[in-house]
């Protein structure tokens, strides 16, 4: 998985690309901090995310939990194909706003 982030005052846009899997779990704590520390709005752009497994989904749950604790507005946008299907089947649309 590759991650880039763009921060504008209290907003951050994170772009996740490639495959988000168990092999990336060592980076998750860093990603959660990047997505939620000192922000009020976090947008996750998944347009280039090709695959997600259950460990990858747990990263999104952590971001959701941190967002809830910090009053952060969270949006997932541009999820495609398998990633969009998997997230909806696992009820992630009940956690995040999908754009």
């Amino acid at each position, binding site marked *: 998985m590759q991650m880039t982030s763009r921060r504008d005052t209290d907003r951050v846009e994170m772009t996740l690309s490639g495959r988000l*899997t168990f092999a990336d779990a060592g980076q998750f704590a860093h990603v959660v901090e990047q997505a939620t520390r000192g922000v009020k709005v976090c947008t996750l752009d998944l347009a280039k995310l090709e695959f997600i497994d*259950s460990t990858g989904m*747990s990263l999104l749950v952590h971001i959701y939990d941190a967002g809830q604790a910090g009053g952060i507005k969270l949006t997932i946008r541009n999820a495609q194909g398998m990633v969009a299907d998997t997230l909806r089947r696992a009820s992630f649309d009940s956690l995040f706003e999908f754009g």
Partner: protein
Amino acid sequence: MAHAVFDSSVLSDLSPVLDGGGVCWLDQASALPRPLPWPDDTLLGVVIATAGALALDLAPAFAAALVRRLPEGAICSEELCAALQEAVGNAVTHGNMGLDGSMRASLEGLHAYSRAMEAAKADPVIMGLPVCVWAERKAGGIAVSVEDQGAGFSPPSSDSLRTPVPRAGGGMGLSIIARSVRDLTFTRGGRRVTMTFPGSA
């Protein structure tokens, strides 16, 4: 049965290896289980080092190679790939690396999990432990097994696996497997999971 060898430590993509026409593949970077776990009529088998299973995308490569060996439409490749990804992930992280997924239930635990994962990745013995994946024909379907060398675990009841709930501390993977397969069995104290997929093979 003839076996071919490869070296996961020098590869960036496993697909060309598994597409190479061999049936059973042994990773030179891995300790080898004795005896090898698969039967003589295995359709496709791989022993790969834990480090290789972390660095390479084993599940999609294995699924694609298996699908190509079967009659068209014999198995749903998407369900196979999704379930196999979860089984391989469990074998690597919870099995061979001994990482407890419930550690990830909190952000503090997630930091500890990250540290434990990095420590395991720095241990050459752990990184050389084998993960075995193989496929064989069963009545009315294809069985794919994944075996690790970890401490094993007590699988939850099948009823509790049917409804995946988003959560950080693990458990979603087994639900994804259960939803994708016709039959799911755990043997060898939880070190071996066998997933039977419906199919016409």
